[in-house]
Protein backbone atom coordinates (compact mmCIF):
# COMPACT_ATOMS: atom_id res chain seq x y z
CA UNK A 1 0.00 0.00 0.00
CA UNK A 2 2.92 2.30 0.70
CA UNK A 3 4.00 2.13 -2.91
CA UNK A 4 0.57 3.19 -4.11
CA UNK A 5 0.37 6.16 -1.79
CA UNK A 6 3.49 7.58 -3.45
CA UNK A 7 1.77 7.27 -6.81
CA UNK A 8 -1.39 8.96 -5.59
CA UNK A 9 0.68 11.85 -4.24
CA UNK A 10 2.50 12.21 -7.53
CA UNK A 11 -0.77 12.08 -9.43
CA UNK A 12 -2.28 14.81 -7.28
CA UNK A 13 0.87 16.86 -7.75
CA UNK A 14 0.59 16.56 -11.53
CA UNK A 15 -2.99 17.79 -11.32
CA UNK A 16 -1.97 20.87 -9.38
CA UNK A 17 1.09 21.55 -11.53
CA UNK A 18 -0.38 23.81 -14.25
CA UNK A 19 -1.47 26.29 -11.63
CA UNK A 20 2.00 26.78 -10.25
CA UNK A 21 4.25 26.70 -13.28
CA UNK A 22 4.49 28.88 -16.35
CA UNK A 23 3.20 27.99 -19.79
CA UNK A 24 6.60 26.98 -21.12
CA UNK A 25 6.92 24.32 -18.43
CA UNK A 26 3.39 23.07 -19.09
CA UNK A 27 4.57 22.44 -22.63
CA UNK A 28 7.55 20.55 -21.26
CA UNK A 29 5.29 18.54 -18.98
CA UNK A 30 3.06 17.48 -21.87
CA UNK A 31 6.14 16.44 -23.79
CA UNK A 32 7.34 14.39 -20.83
CA UNK A 33 4.00 12.61 -20.65
CA UNK A 34 3.76 11.85 -24.37
CA UNK A 35 7.32 10.59 -24.70
CA UNK A 36 7.05 8.83 -21.37
CA UNK A 37 4.11 6.86 -22.74
CA UNK A 38 6.15 6.12 -25.85
CA UNK A 39 9.03 4.90 -23.68
CA UNK A 40 6.83 2.76 -21.43
CA UNK A 41 5.38 1.09 -24.52
CA UNK A 42 8.93 0.44 -25.74
CA UNK A 43 9.79 -1.13 -22.42
CA UNK A 44 7.09 -3.74 -22.93
CA UNK A 45 9.47 -5.14 -25.53
CA UNK A 46 12.75 -4.36 -23.80
CA UNK A 47 12.42 -4.63 -20.03
CA UNK A 48 9.65 -7.20 -20.03
CA UNK A 49 10.24 -9.30 -23.11
CA UNK A 50 13.98 -8.77 -23.23
CA UNK A 51 14.35 -7.68 -26.86
CA UNK A 52 15.83 -4.42 -28.10
CA UNK A 53 13.75 -2.82 -30.83
CA UNK A 54 15.48 -0.07 -32.74
CA UNK A 55 12.44 0.75 -34.81
CA UNK A 56 9.72 1.49 -32.30
CA UNK A 57 9.39 5.02 -33.65
CA UNK A 58 7.70 3.52 -36.72
CA UNK A 59 4.52 2.93 -34.72
CA UNK A 60 4.85 6.27 -32.95
CA UNK A 61 5.04 7.94 -36.34
CA UNK A 62 2.18 5.94 -37.85
CA UNK A 63 0.03 6.95 -34.89
CA UNK A 64 1.04 10.59 -35.31
CA UNK A 65 0.24 10.57 -39.01
CA UNK A 66 -3.07 8.75 -38.51
CA UNK A 67 -4.36 11.39 -36.11
CA UNK A 68 -2.74 14.20 -38.07
CA UNK A 69 -4.29 13.19 -41.37
CA UNK A 70 -7.70 12.59 -39.84
CA UNK A 71 -7.69 15.94 -38.11
CA UNK A 72 -6.55 17.82 -41.20
CA UNK A 73 -8.77 16.13 -43.73
CA UNK A 74 -11.85 15.10 -41.79
CA UNK A 75 -13.89 16.31 -38.88
CA UNK A 76 -13.47 13.19 -36.81
CA UNK A 77 -13.20 14.20 -33.15
CA UNK A 78 -9.79 13.87 -31.54
CA UNK A 79 -10.56 11.01 -29.14
CA UNK A 80 -11.79 8.92 -32.06
CA UNK A 81 -8.68 9.85 -34.04
CA UNK A 82 -6.60 8.51 -31.19
CA UNK A 83 -8.41 5.21 -31.42
CA UNK A 84 -7.62 5.13 -35.14
CA UNK A 85 -4.01 5.86 -34.32
CA UNK A 86 -3.88 2.86 -32.04
CA UNK A 87 -5.50 0.65 -34.66
CA UNK A 88 -3.22 1.86 -37.45
CA UNK A 89 -0.11 1.47 -35.33
CA UNK A 90 -1.28 -1.92 -34.13
CA UNK A 91 -1.91 -3.09 -37.68
CA UNK A 92 1.54 -1.96 -38.76
CA UNK A 93 3.02 -3.71 -35.75
CA UNK A 94 1.14 -6.86 -36.66
CA UNK A 95 2.57 -6.91 -40.19
CA UNK A 96 6.14 -6.07 -39.21
CA UNK A 97 6.00 -7.96 -35.94
CA UNK A 98 5.03 -11.18 -37.69
CA UNK A 99 8.51 -11.20 -39.17
CA UNK A 100 10.40 -9.61 -36.34
CA UNK A 101 9.38 -12.10 -33.67
CA UNK A 102 10.95 -14.92 -35.65
CA UNK A 103 14.29 -13.42 -34.64
CA UNK A 104 15.97 -12.37 -31.44
CA UNK A 105 19.00 -10.43 -30.29
CA UNK A 106 20.97 -8.51 -32.87
CA UNK A 107 18.84 -9.76 -35.77
CA UNK A 108 15.68 -8.53 -34.06
CA UNK A 109 17.31 -5.16 -33.45
CA UNK A 110 18.40 -4.78 -37.06
CA UNK A 111 15.12 -6.00 -38.57
CA UNK A 112 13.06 -3.65 -36.41
CA UNK A 113 15.39 -0.85 -37.47
CA UNK A 114 15.05 -1.79 -41.12
CA UNK A 115 11.25 -1.77 -40.90
CA UNK A 116 11.39 1.55 -39.09
CA UNK A 117 13.43 3.03 -41.92
CA UNK A 118 11.04 1.48 -44.43
CA UNK A 119 8.10 3.32 -42.89
CA UNK A 120 10.18 6.47 -42.79
CA UNK A 121 10.95 6.27 -46.49
CA UNK A 122 7.41 5.34 -47.42
CA UNK A 123 6.04 8.36 -45.58
CA UNK A 124 8.83 10.50 -47.00
CA UNK A 125 8.16 9.49 -50.59
CA UNK A 126 4.38 9.40 -50.54
CA UNK A 127 4.17 13.13 -51.10
CA UNK A 128 0.59 13.18 -52.27
CA UNK A 129 -0.76 11.51 -49.15
CA UNK A 130 1.57 12.45 -46.36
CA UNK A 131 3.12 15.66 -47.59
CA UNK A 132 6.51 14.02 -47.92
CA UNK A 133 9.35 15.79 -46.20
CA UNK A 134 7.20 18.87 -45.69
CA UNK A 135 5.21 16.86 -43.20
CA UNK A 136 1.80 17.90 -42.03
CA UNK A 137 1.29 21.45 -40.90
CA UNK A 138 -1.45 23.15 -39.03
CA UNK A 139 -2.87 20.26 -37.03
CA UNK A 140 -5.11 22.15 -34.68
CA UNK A 141 -6.69 20.58 -31.60
CA UNK A 142 -10.41 21.06 -31.05
CA UNK A 143 -11.54 24.25 -29.35
CA UNK A 144 -11.97 22.75 -25.93
CA UNK A 145 -8.32 21.70 -26.00
CA UNK A 146 -6.92 24.82 -27.58
CA UNK A 147 -5.68 26.16 -24.26
CA UNK A 148 -2.45 24.41 -23.33
CA UNK A 149 -3.65 23.81 -19.77
CA UNK A 150 -6.66 21.94 -21.08
CA UNK A 151 -4.47 19.91 -23.43
CA UNK A 152 -2.30 19.12 -20.44
CA UNK A 153 -5.23 17.70 -18.46
CA UNK A 154 -6.39 15.81 -21.55
CA UNK A 155 -2.93 14.29 -21.91
CA UNK A 156 -2.78 13.42 -18.21
CA UNK A 157 -6.10 11.66 -18.53
CA UNK A 158 -5.14 9.64 -21.61
CA UNK A 159 -1.64 8.81 -20.45
CA UNK A 160 -2.77 7.78 -16.97
CA UNK A 161 -5.46 5.55 -18.44
CA UNK A 162 -2.93 4.00 -20.80
CA UNK A 163 -0.41 3.46 -18.00
CA UNK A 164 -3.04 1.80 -15.85
CA UNK A 165 -3.92 -0.58 -18.67
CA UNK A 166 -0.25 -1.37 -19.29
CA UNK A 167 0.28 -1.85 -15.58
CA UNK A 168 -2.52 -4.39 -15.43
CA UNK A 169 -1.05 -6.15 -18.44
CA UNK A 170 2.35 -6.33 -16.78
CA UNK A 171 0.85 -7.85 -13.63
CA UNK A 172 -1.35 -10.30 -15.52
CA UNK A 173 -0.39 -13.88 -16.38
CA UNK A 174 0.45 -12.58 -19.86
CA UNK A 175 2.85 -10.06 -18.37
CA UNK A 176 4.52 -12.73 -16.27
CA UNK A 177 4.77 -14.95 -19.32
CA UNK A 178 6.60 -12.12 -21.09
CA UNK A 179 9.04 -11.96 -18.22
CA UNK A 180 9.44 -15.71 -18.42
CA UNK A 181 10.24 -15.40 -22.11
CA UNK A 182 12.91 -12.89 -21.24
CA UNK A 183 14.33 -14.90 -18.37
CA UNK A 184 14.50 -18.26 -20.13
CA UNK A 185 12.93 -18.49 -23.55
CA UNK A 186 13.65 -22.16 -24.00
CA UNK A 187 12.09 -23.18 -20.70
CA UNK A 188 9.00 -21.24 -21.63
CA UNK A 189 8.64 -23.25 -24.82
CA UNK A 190 8.94 -26.40 -22.77
CA UNK A 191 6.11 -25.55 -20.42
CA UNK A 192 3.78 -25.22 -23.37
CA UNK A 193 3.92 -21.60 -24.54
CA UNK A 194 3.98 -20.76 -28.23
CA UNK A 195 6.66 -18.15 -27.74
CA UNK A 196 6.36 -16.58 -31.19
CA UNK A 197 2.63 -16.03 -30.81
CA UNK A 198 3.03 -14.38 -27.44
CA UNK A 199 5.87 -12.19 -28.62
CA UNK A 200 3.73 -11.05 -31.52
CA UNK A 201 0.81 -10.15 -29.27
CA UNK A 202 3.17 -8.19 -27.04
CA UNK A 203 4.69 -6.49 -30.08
CA UNK A 204 1.28 -5.38 -31.31
CA UNK A 205 0.15 -4.09 -27.92
CA UNK A 206 3.41 -2.18 -27.51
CA UNK A 207 2.95 -0.74 -31.00
CA UNK A 208 -0.61 0.35 -30.23
CA UNK A 209 0.45 2.36 -27.20
CA UNK A 210 3.30 3.90 -29.15
CA UNK A 211 0.69 4.90 -31.73
CA UNK A 212 -1.45 6.45 -29.02
CA UNK A 213 1.51 8.54 -27.88
CA UNK A 214 2.16 9.61 -31.46
CA UNK A 215 -1.48 10.56 -31.88
CA UNK A 216 -1.23 12.88 -28.90
CA UNK A 217 1.84 14.58 -30.35
CA UNK A 218 0.36 16.01 -33.53
CA UNK A 219 -2.25 18.35 -32.10
CA UNK A 220 0.26 19.36 -29.44
CA UNK A 221 3.13 20.42 -31.69
CA UNK A 222 0.71 21.42 -34.46
CA UNK A 223 2.96 19.83 -37.08
CA UNK A 224 4.60 16.47 -37.69
CA UNK A 225 7.32 15.27 -40.01
CA UNK A 226 8.59 11.92 -41.30
CA UNK A 227 11.55 12.27 -38.93
CA UNK A 228 9.26 10.95 -36.23
CA UNK A 229 9.79 7.47 -37.69
CA UNK A 230 13.52 7.28 -38.25
CA UNK A 231 16.09 5.35 -36.29
CA UNK A 232 17.34 8.42 -34.45
CA UNK A 233 13.82 8.95 -33.09
CA UNK A 234 13.72 5.26 -32.19
CA UNK A 235 16.70 5.91 -29.98
CA UNK A 236 14.77 8.35 -27.76
CA UNK A 237 12.62 5.80 -25.88
CA UNK A 238 15.69 3.59 -25.58
CA UNK A 239 17.63 6.39 -23.93
CA UNK A 240 14.77 7.27 -21.64
CA UNK A 241 14.30 3.66 -20.57
CA UNK A 242 17.98 3.10 -19.95
CA UNK A 243 18.31 6.28 -17.91
CA UNK A 244 15.23 5.57 -15.82
CA UNK A 245 15.77 1.86 -15.51
CA UNK A 246 14.23 -0.90 -17.64
CA UNK A 247 13.41 -3.29 -14.84
CA UNK A 248 10.68 -1.25 -13.19
CA UNK A 249 7.34 -0.26 -14.65
CA UNK A 250 7.88 3.45 -14.08
CA UNK A 251 11.53 3.48 -15.08
CA UNK A 252 10.90 4.79 -18.60
CA UNK A 253 8.63 7.53 -17.28
CA UNK A 254 11.31 8.63 -14.83
CA UNK A 255 13.71 8.53 -17.75
CA UNK A 256 11.38 10.75 -19.74
CA UNK A 257 11.32 13.33 -16.96
CA UNK A 258 15.10 13.41 -16.78
CA UNK A 259 15.66 13.33 -20.53
CA UNK A 260 13.10 16.00 -21.37
CA UNK A 261 14.23 18.32 -18.59
CA UNK A 262 17.82 17.83 -19.58
CA UNK A 263 16.93 18.54 -23.20
CA UNK A 264 15.00 21.71 -22.37
CA UNK A 265 17.79 22.84 -20.07
CA UNK A 266 20.76 22.05 -22.31
CA UNK A 267 19.29 23.35 -25.54
CA UNK A 268 18.68 26.60 -23.74
CA UNK A 269 22.36 27.48 -23.87
CA UNK A 270 24.05 25.20 -26.35
CA UNK A 271 23.35 23.47 -29.62
CA UNK A 272 25.46 20.47 -28.70
CA UNK A 273 22.67 18.36 -27.30
CA UNK A 274 23.80 15.15 -29.06
CA UNK A 275 27.20 15.43 -27.44
CA UNK A 276 25.59 15.90 -24.03
CA UNK A 277 23.16 13.03 -24.25
CA UNK A 278 25.85 10.82 -25.79
CA UNK A 279 28.09 11.39 -22.76
CA UNK A 280 25.17 10.83 -20.38
CA UNK A 281 24.30 7.53 -22.04
CA UNK A 282 27.89 6.30 -21.93
CA UNK A 283 28.03 7.22 -18.26
CA UNK A 284 24.77 5.41 -17.51
CA UNK A 285 25.76 2.31 -19.48
CA UNK A 286 29.15 2.04 -17.82
CA UNK A 287 28.33 3.05 -14.27
CA UNK A 288 24.57 2.77 -13.77
CA UNK A 289 23.40 -0.16 -15.86
CA UNK A 290 20.11 -0.45 -14.02
CA UNK A 291 19.31 3.20 -14.50
CA UNK A 292 17.92 5.39 -11.76
CA UNK A 293 15.64 2.64 -10.52
CA UNK A 294 18.57 0.28 -10.31
CA UNK A 295 20.45 2.76 -8.19
CA UNK A 296 17.46 3.26 -5.89
CA UNK A 297 17.02 -0.50 -5.51
CA UNK A 298 20.66 -0.88 -4.55
CA UNK A 299 20.37 1.79 -1.91
CA UNK A 300 17.18 0.22 -0.55
CA UNK A 301 18.83 -3.20 -0.48
CA UNK A 302 21.82 -1.89 1.41
CA UNK A 303 19.52 -0.13 3.89
CA UNK A 304 17.61 -3.38 4.34
CA UNK A 305 20.88 -5.24 4.75
CA UNK A 306 22.06 -2.82 7.37
CA UNK A 307 18.78 -3.19 9.21
CA UNK A 308 19.04 -6.96 9.14
CA UNK A 309 22.66 -7.08 10.23
CA UNK A 310 21.87 -4.42 12.80
CA UNK A 311 19.22 -6.73 14.28
CA UNK A 312 21.67 -9.61 14.10
CA UNK A 313 24.30 -7.62 15.94
CA UNK A 314 21.80 -6.60 18.59
CA UNK A 315 20.76 -10.20 18.97
CA UNK A 316 24.37 -11.33 19.32
CA UNK A 317 25.08 -8.70 21.92
CA UNK A 318 22.05 -9.77 23.93
CA UNK A 319 23.18 -13.40 23.74
CA UNK A 320 26.62 -12.45 24.98
Amino acid at each position, binding site marked *: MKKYSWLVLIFIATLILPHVIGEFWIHVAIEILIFGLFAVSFNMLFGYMGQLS*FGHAAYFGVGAYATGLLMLKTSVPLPVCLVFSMVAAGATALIFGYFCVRLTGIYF*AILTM*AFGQLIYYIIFQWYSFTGGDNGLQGIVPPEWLYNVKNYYYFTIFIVTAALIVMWFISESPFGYTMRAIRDNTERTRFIGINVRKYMLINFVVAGMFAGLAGGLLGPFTRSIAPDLCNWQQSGVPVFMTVIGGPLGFFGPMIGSVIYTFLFAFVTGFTEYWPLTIG*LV*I*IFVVLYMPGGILGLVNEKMDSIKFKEQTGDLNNGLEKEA
Partner: protein
Amino acid sequence: MDPSMIFAQFLSGLSRGMMLFLIASGLSLIFGVMNILNFAHAALWLVGAYFCYTFWYLMQGTALGLWFSIVLAALALAVVGWIIEVVLIRRVYNRELSEQLLLTYALVLIIDDLIKIVWGVEDKLIERPPVVADPVFIFGAPLDSYFVFVIIVGFGVAIGLWWFLKKTRYGHIVRASVFSREMVSALGIPIPRIYTGVFAMGIFIAGLAGAIQAPVGSITLGMDMAVIIQAFCVVVIGGLGSLLGTFVASLVVGEVYAFSILFWPEGALVLIFIVTALVLIIRPWGLFGTPVRT
Protein backbone atom coordinates in the same frame (compact mmCIF):
# COMPACT_ATOMS: atom_id res chain seq x y z
CA MET B 1 18.49 2.00 -73.88
CA ASP B 2 21.84 1.52 -75.47
CA PRO B 3 24.42 -0.93 -74.14
CA SER B 4 27.06 1.64 -73.34
CA MET B 5 24.65 3.43 -71.03
CA ILE B 6 23.90 0.19 -69.25
CA PHE B 7 27.59 -0.48 -69.00
CA ALA B 8 28.13 3.01 -67.64
CA GLN B 9 25.56 2.36 -64.95
CA PHE B 10 27.22 -0.95 -64.25
CA LEU B 11 30.55 0.76 -63.70
CA SER B 12 28.91 3.40 -61.55
CA GLY B 13 27.36 0.66 -59.47
CA LEU B 14 30.70 -1.08 -59.25
CA SER B 15 32.47 1.95 -57.84
CA ARG B 16 29.60 2.66 -55.50
CA GLY B 17 29.77 -0.94 -54.38
CA MET B 18 33.47 -0.63 -53.76
CA MET B 19 32.95 2.44 -51.62
CA LEU B 20 30.36 0.53 -49.65
CA PHE B 21 32.72 -2.41 -49.32
CA LEU B 22 35.42 -0.20 -47.89
CA ILE B 23 33.02 1.00 -45.21
CA ALA B 24 31.27 -2.28 -44.56
CA SER B 25 34.37 -4.48 -44.46
CA GLY B 26 35.62 -2.88 -41.25
CA LEU B 27 32.16 -3.19 -39.72
CA SER B 28 31.95 -6.84 -40.69
CA LEU B 29 35.45 -7.58 -39.41
CA ILE B 30 34.71 -6.05 -36.02
CA PHE B 31 31.41 -7.84 -35.71
CA GLY B 32 32.79 -11.13 -36.93
CA VAL B 33 35.58 -11.17 -34.39
CA MET B 34 34.25 -9.22 -31.44
CA ASN B 35 30.52 -9.71 -31.87
CA ILE B 36 30.00 -5.98 -31.50
CA LEU B 37 27.98 -4.03 -34.04
CA ASN B 38 29.79 -0.72 -34.25
CA PHE B 39 27.10 1.90 -34.79
CA ALA B 40 29.80 4.55 -34.86
CA HIS B 41 31.54 3.04 -37.86
CA ALA B 42 30.21 5.56 -40.38
CA ALA B 43 30.81 8.45 -37.99
CA LEU B 44 34.45 7.41 -37.81
CA TRP B 45 34.45 7.07 -41.59
CA LEU B 46 33.36 10.69 -41.76
CA VAL B 47 36.12 11.70 -39.35
CA GLY B 48 38.52 10.02 -41.76
CA ALA B 49 37.20 12.23 -44.54
CA TYR B 50 37.64 15.35 -42.44
CA PHE B 51 41.13 14.32 -41.34
CA CYS B 52 42.03 13.83 -44.97
CA TYR B 53 40.79 17.32 -45.77
CA THR B 54 42.79 18.83 -42.93
CA PHE B 55 46.01 17.04 -43.85
CA TRP B 56 45.56 17.98 -47.49
CA TYR B 57 44.96 21.57 -46.49
CA LEU B 58 48.09 21.60 -44.33
CA MET B 59 50.10 20.29 -47.25
CA GLN B 60 49.11 23.39 -49.17
CA GLY B 61 46.45 21.62 -51.13
CA THR B 62 48.74 19.90 -53.61
CA ALA B 63 47.80 16.84 -55.58
CA LEU B 64 50.69 14.87 -54.10
CA GLY B 65 49.59 16.06 -50.70
CA LEU B 66 46.24 14.40 -51.26
CA TRP B 67 47.72 10.93 -51.67
CA PHE B 68 49.75 11.42 -48.51
CA SER B 69 46.73 12.75 -46.68
CA ILE B 70 44.73 9.67 -47.48
CA VAL B 71 47.34 7.45 -45.91
CA LEU B 72 47.82 9.76 -42.93
CA ALA B 73 44.09 9.99 -42.31
CA ALA B 74 43.76 6.21 -42.28
CA LEU B 75 46.65 5.92 -39.84
CA ALA B 76 45.18 8.65 -37.65
CA LEU B 77 41.88 6.80 -37.54
CA ALA B 78 43.68 3.62 -36.55
CA VAL B 79 45.02 5.49 -33.54
CA VAL B 80 41.56 6.88 -32.76
CA GLY B 81 40.13 3.38 -33.04
CA TRP B 82 42.78 2.02 -30.74
CA ILE B 83 41.95 4.65 -28.12
CA ILE B 84 38.20 4.09 -28.37
CA GLU B 85 38.65 0.36 -28.00
CA VAL B 86 40.86 0.59 -24.94
CA VAL B 87 38.83 3.29 -23.20
CA LEU B 88 35.28 2.22 -24.04
CA ILE B 89 34.69 -0.91 -26.05
CA ARG B 90 36.77 -3.05 -23.76
CA ARG B 91 34.37 -2.40 -20.93
CA VAL B 92 31.38 -3.89 -22.67
CA TYR B 93 32.84 -7.12 -24.06
CA ASN B 94 30.76 -9.26 -21.78
CA ARG B 95 27.81 -7.00 -21.38
CA GLU B 96 24.43 -7.42 -22.97
CA LEU B 97 23.78 -6.61 -26.59
CA SER B 98 21.68 -3.56 -25.70
CA GLU B 99 24.48 -2.02 -23.67
CA GLN B 100 26.98 -2.52 -26.48
CA LEU B 101 24.64 -1.03 -29.07
CA LEU B 102 23.83 1.93 -26.85
CA LEU B 103 27.49 2.61 -26.23
CA THR B 104 28.38 2.72 -29.90
CA TYR B 105 25.21 4.67 -30.69
CA ALA B 106 26.13 7.25 -28.06
CA LEU B 107 29.53 7.46 -29.73
CA VAL B 108 27.82 8.45 -32.97
CA LEU B 109 26.18 11.41 -31.27
CA ILE B 110 29.40 12.46 -29.60
CA ILE B 111 31.54 12.11 -32.70
CA ASP B 112 29.08 13.97 -34.91
CA ASP B 113 29.02 16.91 -32.54
CA LEU B 114 32.80 16.86 -32.15
CA ILE B 115 33.09 17.05 -35.93
CA LYS B 116 30.86 20.11 -35.82
CA ILE B 117 32.97 21.69 -33.10
CA VAL B 118 36.32 21.02 -34.73
CA TRP B 119 35.51 21.56 -38.39
CA GLY B 120 32.42 23.74 -38.31
CA VAL B 121 29.30 23.39 -40.38
CA GLU B 122 30.38 24.44 -43.88
CA ASP B 123 31.04 21.84 -46.53
CA LYS B 124 34.65 21.06 -47.22
CA LEU B 125 35.91 20.69 -50.73
CA ILE B 126 39.07 18.99 -51.91
CA GLU B 127 40.34 19.79 -55.35
CA ARG B 128 40.61 16.95 -57.75
CA PRO B 129 44.20 16.02 -58.54
CA PRO B 130 44.83 16.55 -62.27
CA VAL B 131 45.72 12.91 -62.87
CA VAL B 132 42.13 11.93 -62.23
CA ALA B 133 40.44 15.00 -63.64
CA ASP B 134 39.30 13.48 -66.96
CA PRO B 135 37.13 10.43 -67.30
CA VAL B 136 38.46 7.23 -68.77
CA PHE B 137 36.54 5.36 -71.39
CA ILE B 138 35.96 1.67 -71.04
CA PHE B 139 34.24 0.09 -74.02
CA GLY B 140 32.92 3.50 -74.89
CA ALA B 141 31.36 4.15 -71.52
CA PRO B 142 32.71 7.00 -69.44
CA LEU B 143 33.96 6.28 -65.98
CA ASP B 144 35.15 8.86 -63.53
CA SER B 145 38.84 8.02 -63.38
CA TYR B 146 38.94 8.57 -59.65
CA PHE B 147 36.61 5.63 -59.41
CA VAL B 148 39.22 3.48 -61.09
CA PHE B 149 41.39 4.34 -58.12
CA VAL B 150 38.53 3.48 -55.76
CA ILE B 151 37.97 0.14 -57.45
CA ILE B 152 41.66 -0.67 -57.22
CA VAL B 153 41.77 0.23 -53.53
CA GLY B 154 38.62 -1.79 -52.92
CA PHE B 155 40.13 -4.90 -54.43
CA GLY B 156 43.35 -4.17 -52.61
CA VAL B 157 41.62 -4.05 -49.24
CA ALA B 158 39.63 -7.18 -50.01
CA ILE B 159 42.72 -9.12 -51.01
CA GLY B 160 44.69 -7.67 -48.12
CA LEU B 161 42.10 -8.72 -45.56
CA TRP B 162 41.79 -12.16 -47.09
CA TRP B 163 45.56 -12.63 -47.06
CA PHE B 164 45.75 -11.34 -43.51
CA LEU B 165 43.08 -13.66 -42.19
CA LYS B 166 44.04 -16.77 -44.14
CA LYS B 167 47.80 -16.52 -44.45
CA THR B 168 49.31 -14.70 -41.51
CA ARG B 169 49.86 -16.06 -38.03
CA TYR B 170 48.10 -13.08 -36.49
CA GLY B 171 45.15 -13.67 -38.77
CA HIS B 172 44.98 -17.29 -37.68
CA ILE B 173 44.91 -16.22 -34.06
CA VAL B 174 42.10 -13.80 -34.84
CA ARG B 175 40.07 -16.50 -36.55
CA ALA B 176 40.74 -18.90 -33.69
CA SER B 177 39.45 -16.36 -31.20
CA VAL B 178 36.17 -16.26 -33.07
CA PHE B 179 35.74 -19.96 -32.43
CA SER B 180 36.92 -20.01 -28.88
CA ARG B 181 38.02 -17.11 -26.76
CA GLU B 182 38.86 -19.46 -23.93
CA MET B 183 41.23 -21.59 -25.96
CA VAL B 184 43.11 -18.62 -27.28
CA SER B 185 43.46 -17.16 -23.77
CA ALA B 186 44.52 -20.53 -22.47
CA LEU B 187 47.34 -20.50 -25.01
CA GLY B 188 48.60 -17.37 -23.34
CA ILE B 189 47.42 -14.90 -25.96
CA PRO B 190 45.51 -12.04 -24.36
CA ILE B 191 42.14 -11.59 -25.94
CA PRO B 192 41.87 -7.85 -25.23
CA ARG B 193 45.01 -7.21 -27.24
CA ILE B 194 43.64 -9.13 -30.17
CA TYR B 195 40.39 -7.27 -30.00
CA THR B 196 42.12 -3.93 -29.81
CA GLY B 197 44.16 -4.80 -32.86
CA VAL B 198 41.12 -5.96 -34.80
CA PHE B 199 39.11 -2.91 -33.84
CA ALA B 200 41.94 -0.58 -34.79
CA MET B 201 42.27 -2.39 -38.09
CA GLY B 202 38.57 -2.06 -38.76
CA ILE B 203 38.68 1.64 -38.03
CA PHE B 204 41.82 2.01 -40.15
CA ILE B 205 39.86 0.68 -43.10
CA ALA B 206 36.96 2.99 -42.23
CA GLY B 207 39.37 5.92 -42.11
CA LEU B 208 40.85 4.89 -45.43
CA ALA B 209 37.36 4.67 -46.89
CA GLY B 210 36.48 8.10 -45.57
CA ALA B 211 39.68 9.64 -46.83
CA ILE B 212 39.11 8.15 -50.27
CA GLN B 213 35.53 9.42 -50.25
CA ALA B 214 36.71 12.92 -49.36
CA PRO B 215 37.64 14.17 -52.85
CA VAL B 216 34.37 12.89 -54.28
CA GLY B 217 31.92 15.76 -54.24
CA SER B 218 32.14 17.59 -50.95
CA ILE B 219 32.36 16.59 -47.32
CA THR B 220 29.17 17.42 -45.49
CA LEU B 221 27.87 16.99 -41.97
CA GLY B 222 25.39 14.16 -41.67
CA MET B 223 26.85 12.11 -44.52
CA ASP B 224 27.44 9.32 -42.08
CA MET B 225 23.76 8.95 -41.22
CA ALA B 226 22.80 7.83 -44.71
CA VAL B 227 25.84 5.62 -45.02
CA ILE B 228 25.55 3.67 -41.75
CA ILE B 229 22.17 2.26 -42.67
CA GLN B 230 23.45 1.14 -46.08
CA ALA B 231 26.46 -0.42 -44.41
CA PHE B 232 24.19 -2.34 -42.03
CA CYS B 233 22.15 -3.57 -44.98
CA VAL B 234 25.28 -4.74 -46.78
CA VAL B 235 26.62 -6.56 -43.75
CA VAL B 236 23.29 -8.25 -43.09
CA ILE B 237 22.76 -9.32 -46.71
CA GLY B 238 26.28 -10.61 -47.03
CA GLY B 239 26.40 -12.22 -43.64
CA LEU B 240 27.57 -10.65 -40.42
CA GLY B 241 31.24 -11.51 -40.15
CA SER B 242 31.77 -12.91 -43.62
CA LEU B 243 34.33 -11.07 -45.70
CA LEU B 244 33.28 -12.67 -48.96
CA GLY B 245 29.66 -11.98 -48.12
CA THR B 246 30.39 -8.33 -47.46
CA PHE B 247 32.23 -8.06 -50.76
CA VAL B 248 29.49 -9.66 -52.81
CA ALA B 249 26.71 -7.82 -50.99
CA SER B 250 28.46 -4.46 -51.42
CA LEU B 251 28.63 -4.95 -55.16
CA VAL B 252 25.03 -6.17 -55.31
CA VAL B 253 23.77 -3.19 -53.32
CA GLY B 254 25.90 -0.83 -55.39
CA GLU B 255 24.42 -2.20 -58.60
CA VAL B 256 20.86 -2.17 -57.23
CA TYR B 257 21.35 1.47 -56.38
CA ALA B 258 22.85 2.32 -59.78
CA PHE B 259 20.13 0.63 -61.77
CA SER B 260 17.18 1.71 -59.69
CA ILE B 261 18.25 5.28 -60.46
CA LEU B 262 17.07 4.49 -63.99
CA PHE B 263 13.63 3.19 -63.11
CA TRP B 264 12.71 4.38 -59.66
CA PRO B 265 15.13 6.97 -58.29
CA GLU B 266 13.38 7.50 -54.99
CA GLY B 267 12.94 3.83 -54.45
CA ALA B 268 16.59 2.80 -54.34
CA LEU B 269 16.82 2.75 -50.58
CA VAL B 270 13.35 1.28 -50.17
CA LEU B 271 14.40 -1.56 -52.43
CA ILE B 272 17.54 -2.16 -50.40
CA PHE B 273 15.54 -2.23 -47.17
CA ILE B 274 13.10 -4.69 -48.60
CA VAL B 275 15.95 -6.95 -49.67
CA THR B 276 17.53 -6.59 -46.23
CA ALA B 277 14.26 -7.41 -44.52
CA LEU B 278 13.78 -10.43 -46.79
CA VAL B 279 17.24 -11.73 -46.00
CA LEU B 280 16.63 -11.33 -42.28
CA ILE B 281 13.34 -13.13 -42.56
CA ILE B 282 14.43 -16.02 -44.75
CA ARG B 283 18.09 -16.41 -43.91
CA PRO B 284 19.10 -14.13 -41.04
CA TRP B 285 22.76 -15.13 -41.13
CA GLY B 286 23.03 -13.69 -44.60
CA LEU B 287 24.02 -15.12 -47.94
CA PHE B 288 27.47 -16.21 -46.87
CA GLY B 289 27.26 -16.31 -43.11
CA THR B 290 27.33 -19.45 -40.97
CA PRO B 291 23.83 -20.65 -40.06
CA VAL B 292 22.88 -20.02 -36.45
CA ARG B 293 19.83 -20.83 -34.40
CA THR B 294 17.96 -17.57 -33.97
